[in-house]
């Protein structure tokens, strides 16, 4: 057995003799590492969830909304902002190439809807048939709005899964008549289940009707809340964006140098927005977890310093019987490393467990990644090195006589 192996064994033995002290230190590291692991799992999960939502919308989607709030996140579609009209849609269709499909959208939330004695508040969307394809939001049962429905402003609708549950329970809604603001509508179909959006909105709590019916029979809004476009060639999406922008600025008579009175979003914008947001979330959470690791390190350093000074006689006798300075340094550092590694493993397991519990309780999405594992283990070793070296050097640099005299 060589000298290093003997000292390693000795470190292990000494730790076994001081179980409580070792346990407290391991716990300190474990808590830090567990929070780091959990933070990374949760923020990675959140990021992937957002990206999923964005990706579901497809790389060929172009959204235009009224307003000028380019820098404050997703546009609000505020009703006070009035700039987009249906003629804009016709103009885009006529003058811009690379448009595969286009649909104007009007919508309002919290509209009362009744069926028999059941009542609910839901968001009403007025759209054209192309909308289903553009938003990938077709019927799961029945049929979508047809061109004829739009031409004749038919009183037909498709209902989302939440609306169906609220009004019909398990019964089949197709062919039934519901009242939207006391106007009777025949249910033509059910919309696919979509779940909660990245913004936390229930995407199934909606009713879709022909845009003409929306304007003439229901809400009489003149202005659009949105125009959605699918481009034919995704490689040329940026050119199309510029063409549409130029056209709309001309139509809206916006002088050069004045800002747009509409906001255009490409899928790339959404991805940038989403990843930017989750990156800052990751940074924040990692910062907090890193801080707790530093606290854990300080706990280790303190206990190690206390232990080194409580063990002065032990260090003195080791030096007297032949331990070199580096032997003492190695022993204390090994104790730190062993504690850090054990705390790291324990903390990783704890962190994974915690993030699994969070995701199973649906508190937060979480994803177990190798990054989290690597980060935890690396941070443990760094902790051991940074916070172990000072007590270790302090121990090693005592002269044997001073250590024995203590």
């Amino acid at each position, binding site marked *: *057995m*060589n*000298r290093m192996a*003997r*000292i390693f064994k*000795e470190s292990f*033995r*000494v730790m076994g*003799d*001081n179980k409580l002290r070792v346990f407290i230190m391991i716990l300190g590291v474990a808590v830090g590492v567990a929070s780091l692991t959990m933070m990374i799992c949760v923020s990675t999960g959140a990021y992937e969830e957002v990206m999923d939502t964005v990706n579901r919308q497809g790389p060929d989607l172009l959204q235009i909304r009224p307003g000028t709030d380019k820098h404050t996140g997703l546009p609000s579609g505020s009703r006070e902002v009035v700039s987009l009209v249906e003629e804009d849609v016709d103009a885009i269709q006529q003058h811009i190439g690379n448009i595969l499909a286009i649909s104007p959208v009007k919508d309002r939330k919290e509209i009362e809807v009744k069926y028999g004695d059941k009542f609910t508040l839901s968001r009403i969307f007025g759209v054209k048939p192309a909308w289903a394809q553009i938003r990938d939001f077709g019927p799961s049962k029945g049929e979508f709005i047809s061109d004829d429905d739009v031409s004749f402003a038919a009183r037909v609708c498709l209902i989302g899964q939440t609306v169906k549950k609220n009004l019909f329970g398990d019964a089949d809604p197709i062919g039934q008549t519901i009242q939207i603001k006391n106007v009777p509508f025949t249910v033509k179909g059910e919309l696919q289940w979509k779940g909660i959006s990245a913004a936390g909105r229930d995407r199934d709590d909606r009713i879709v009707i022909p845009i003409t019916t929306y304007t003439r029979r229901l809400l009489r809004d003149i202005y659009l809340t949105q125009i959605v476009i699918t481009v034919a060639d995704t490689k040329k999406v940026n050119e199309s964006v510029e063409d549409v922008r130029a056209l709309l600025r001309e139509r809206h008579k916006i002088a050069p140098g004045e800002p747009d009175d509409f906001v255009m979003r490409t899928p790339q914008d959404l991805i940038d927005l989403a990843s930017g947001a989750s990156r800052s979330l990751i940074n924040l959470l990692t910062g907090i977890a890193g801080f707790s690791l530093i606290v854990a390190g300080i706990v280790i350093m303190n206990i190690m310093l206390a232990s080194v000074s409580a063990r002065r*006689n*032990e260090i*003195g*006798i*080791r*030096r*007297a*019987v*032949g*331990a*070199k*300075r*580096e*032997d003492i340094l190695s022993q204390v550092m090994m104790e730190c490393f062993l504690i850090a590694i054990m705390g790291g493993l324990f903390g990783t397991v704890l962190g994974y467990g915690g993030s699994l519990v969070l995701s199973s309780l649906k508190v937060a999405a979480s994803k177990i990644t190798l990054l989290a594992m690597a980060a935890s283990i690396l941070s443990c070793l760094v902790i051991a090195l940074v916070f172990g070296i000072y007590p270790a050097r302090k121990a090693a640099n005592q*002269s*044997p*006589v001073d250590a*024995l005299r203590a």
Partner: protein
Amino acid sequence: MIKIRNIEKTYTKGSLSTHVLRGINLAIDRGEYVAIMGTSGTGKSTLMNILGCLDKPTSGHVELDGIDVLKLDDDTLSALRNKKFGFVFQQFFLLERTTAQDNVLLPLIYADKYPADAVERAKGALSRVGLEDRTEYLANELSGGQQQRVAIARALINDPDVILADEPTGNLDSENTRDVLEIFSRLHKERRTIVVVTHDREVAEKAQRILELKDGKIYENP
């Protein structure tokens, strides 16, 4: 085998300096049993620490088997202590929550070569001090006399040339004192060099040669 010449040792604390050793000359031959006497504070322990390469004098020369030890670096001194000396202290200095056997094995951890029969040697050393049935006891489960005997076994494990004992009986009752002194006499008969520092004349009188430290100077056969 140990020769010291003109050893001076001064401790300085703030503006206060204490001149403990004032020009000590001393030669100890192989196989000698030497007692260094003196009242407390006369520098007996300081002298022993210098003899055992645990401390360095302020000035003077220390020679061990012809080697000028003051020219050696810290690592070489550690190795030298490991090979040449066995230490016994008044406070025993055992690792408390550690078995008698592991305490005895301590010097071997830092030996150049770890002997294959280390455990047997530890058991042998413990049986030489009459503790063959206590090998697995934790140090803090043993009586004071037993702890000092474990310390002596630890001092013997590396088969050192010199046993240096600083007030080895200072914390022991008369019966245990007798036992420890008997062990020293036996070791002396095995031609081992023994240096005992004590304030107790009875303990000193077991030695072959008695030195007295007084006012920083040494006196032979007082």
